[in-house]
């Protein structure tokens, strides 16, 4: 026994069990399709080292689609390994269907009945011993989220056996459907003696809430409420209060003056930094325009801007020191710009967003949204299932692009990838946008949302036309609504923040370094005047915003932070209409370079380039149109 393959239906807890066995965390949620890639880790079980492999959930071993391909390939590649089938104890029938399919591979197996506590809570019972007897393989009961039964599983692994179930007699020429029907008939016999379930007379609160979430009216109300909650927590509290606190109290008042003082001592050259009064405050936001102020204070702090001592000639050594000084704490300094953007603005926003998002994911609410939007998505050649990658895109578009594998046809995958790259803002950018919306009027925020919805619909429709093919029928399993496990929410948030910082800080530093070099080589001026017709003429933005668009090519959230700084920072240079136009343009940019690479990986270079060639000109087009419509509206 060298390897264990964790296999099972979607959303039964394979990834939690994987974590229990190996100690390695993989993202766990309450909806089918969270794991789309194989994850491996080594662990010590008893006295041997074993490799454990977590696979994406499957319902049918024979199905030939992207979702099951990964798992079937895994089963084929490692023919000598032990299969650990993880089953949702409440859903024994479906699990046994997969057991029978796996049994036909004639390989040693163990069956894990997970969520046995939820079965008991429902009044259900499984005779494990009798089931093990019938199947001829060890059957283990676990409650993976509470790490119950992991030792029992480890103890049962050496007893893994080839199932003794006789395969179903299939008439010649029968299709997979006939086979599954015969298997299910056999399963009914199996379950007769081993499984019982008594339904409670009244549905529980979670069940009722689950129904409300799918109801045409109550569901929309619940959805609006969830949206409002996200807006308050991320846009007002995270991007307002927390960012203010970190940006002014930590960075502007303490860290960056301290960094400037230290560097001035280490790299002396004749210059003097400006000293300004920096106001700071802590407030609890009530609405975009109302807040309750708790503290307010003001301190004198060193600013990044400086003037050379008049009359002093810089020696070569001093000029070098000045270069390093500017690289670290200058206007485009790695410390004063890149780190303060990444840690003071993006970090609080993604933290609040990931926290709420993890809560929503674990509750099982997201798939219920699919039911509500199914009709609308039909217009774009998609079905409701596509809402899962789209909502995940609000977390990270690159990861979501990978999740498009749960969609059945190539057409659906391409349309969804396109819409993700174009109009779904990812977490960091969404937070910045929410903050900008808070700075604008509610009407402008509404206009932005309507515009994005219109873009989604139009481009979705067009892409669906360009890429021929069929839309698959809408068939989606709805997981039960659960109370989120706070431990898992915290773990997931933490792992996402860690991943985000590893991803975002190097890119922010690199982007700032590019700006710094361009500035030093006086190319920034050149680019600004080169881009003038586009930025000033077409978009009606100040010349300085060319920088924002430039870094926006690298990561659109970086561009958005730049815009936010220009819109609400100490030296605000944008009027409301300009904020709106910049917001629209940056939202429509491709999210980041990583996203481009992911598109190329999933759909090929050609598709990736075609999308890029469409997205950037389109973003400018819509931005310019928004400006003209806005001017026309304010003219009347």
């Amino acid at each position, binding site marked *: 026994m060298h390897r264990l393959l964790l296999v099972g239906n979607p959303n039964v807890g394979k990834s939690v069990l994987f974590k229990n066995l190996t100690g390695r965390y993989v993202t766990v949620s309450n909806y089918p399709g969270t794991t789309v890639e194989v994850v491996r880790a080594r662990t010590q079980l008893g006295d041997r080292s074993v490799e454990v492999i977590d696979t994406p959930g499957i319902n049918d071993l024979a*199905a030939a689609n992207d979702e099951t391909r990964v798992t079937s390939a895994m089963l084929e590649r490692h023919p000598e390994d032990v299969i650990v089938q993880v089953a949702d104890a409440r859903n024994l029938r479906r699990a046994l269907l997969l057991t029978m399919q796996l049994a036909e591979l004639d390989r040693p197996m163990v069956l894990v009945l997970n969520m046995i506590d939820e079965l008991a809570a429902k009044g259900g019972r499984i005779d494990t011993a009798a089931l093990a007897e019938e199947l001829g393989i060890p059957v283990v009961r676990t409650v993976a989220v509470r790490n119950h039964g992991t030792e029992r599983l480890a103890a049962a692994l050496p007893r893994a056996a080839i199932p003794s179930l006789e395969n179903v007699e299939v008439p010649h020429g029968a299709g997979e459907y006939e086979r599954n029907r015969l298997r299910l008939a056999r399963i009914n016999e199996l379950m007769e003696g081993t499984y019982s379930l008594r339904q409670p007379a009244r549905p529980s609160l979670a069940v009722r809430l689950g129904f409300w979430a799918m109801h045409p009216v109550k569901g929309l109300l619940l959805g609006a409420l969830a949206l409002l909650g996200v807006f308050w927590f991320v846009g007002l509290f995270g991007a307002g209060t927390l960012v203010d606190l970190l940006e002014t109290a930590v960075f502007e008042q303490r860290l960056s003056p301290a960094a400037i003082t230290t560097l001035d001592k280490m790299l002396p050259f004749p210059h003097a930094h400006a000293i300004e009064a920096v106001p700071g405050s802590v407030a609890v936001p009530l609405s975009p325009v109302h807040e309750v102020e708790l503290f307010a204070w003001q301190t004198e702090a060193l600013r990044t801007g400086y003037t050379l001592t008049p009359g002093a000639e810089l020696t070569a050594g001093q000029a070098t020191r000045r270069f390093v000084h500017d690289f670290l704490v200058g206007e485009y300094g790695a410390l004063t710009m890149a780190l303060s953007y990444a840690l003071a603005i993006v970090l609080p926003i993604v933290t609040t967003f990931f926290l709420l998002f993890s809560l929503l994911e674990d509750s099982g609410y997201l798939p219920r949204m699919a039911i509500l939007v199914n*009709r609308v998505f039909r217009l774009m050649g998609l079905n409701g299932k596509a809402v899962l990658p789209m909502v995940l895109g609000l977390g990270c578009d690159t990861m979501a692009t990978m999740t498009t594998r749960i969609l059945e046809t190539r057409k659906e995958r391409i349309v969804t990838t396109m819409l993700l790259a174009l109009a779904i803002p990812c977490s960091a950018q969404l937070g910045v946008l929410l903050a900008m919306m808070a700075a604008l009027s509610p009407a402008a925020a509404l206009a932005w949302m309507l515009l994005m919805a219109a873009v989604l619909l139009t481009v979705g429709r067009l892409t669906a036309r360009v890429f021929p093919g069929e839309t698959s029928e809408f068939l989606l399993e709805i997981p039960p609504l659960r109370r989120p496990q706070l431990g898992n929410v915290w773990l997931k948030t933490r792992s996402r923040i860690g991943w985000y910082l590893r991803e975002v800080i190097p890119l922010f530093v690199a982007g700032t370094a590019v700006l710094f070099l361009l500035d030093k080589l006086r190319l920034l001026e050149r680019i600004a005047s080169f881009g003038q017709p586009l930025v000033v003429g077409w978009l009606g933005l100040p010349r300085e915003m060319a920088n924002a668009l430039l870094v926006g090519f690298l990561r659109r959230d970086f561009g958005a932070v730049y815009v936010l700084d220009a819109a609400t920072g100490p030296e605000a240079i944008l009027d409301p209409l300009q904020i709106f136009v910049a917001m629209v343009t940056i939202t429509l940019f491709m999210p980041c370079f990583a996203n481009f690479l992911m598109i190329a990986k999933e759909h090929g270079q050609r598709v990736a380039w075609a999308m890029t060639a469409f997205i950037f000109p389109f973003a400018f087009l819509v931005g310019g149109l928004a400006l003209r419509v806005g001017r026309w509206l304010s003219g009347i």
Partner: protein
Amino acid sequence: MAERYLTCPLCGFGFEPEDALCAHGCPLRSHCALVRCPACDYEFAEQPGRGSWWRRLLGSGTAEATDGECEALSVDQLRAGQTASVLSLSGSRNKLAVFGLVPGIEITLLQRRPACVVQVGETELALDREIARRILVRRPGGPPAEPEGILGTGGG
């Protein structure tokens, strides 16, 4: 695209129009309104349409009683909360079978709009109206056992 599925009103056998006994070689061909059940040779008229679009739109969610004797309904004709046993499937049947939805099993329609949601065992499945139309169930006898009991009657 839309696949029709016929159910014999006499013996309850479900079949596709191509399997109807008289379909091959009959000089009347498509001009004939009658089909013959391949199981019992009973000849009957194909089911009439499901009413006009506005009846479907404004309908209270109950099945339009097309003809009293009709034993089979499609799932979307059930009332929300009703449980019925599946008679036959058509179209991409295996996609449903892997969720345990096969003829003989009891399913409960949980809601009809904006998409149908059915419960099969412990699985809740959201489906398009098009798929729901292709799942034929036996007309449940009398009113549903518990008008409010959304979970249906599980039995002891």
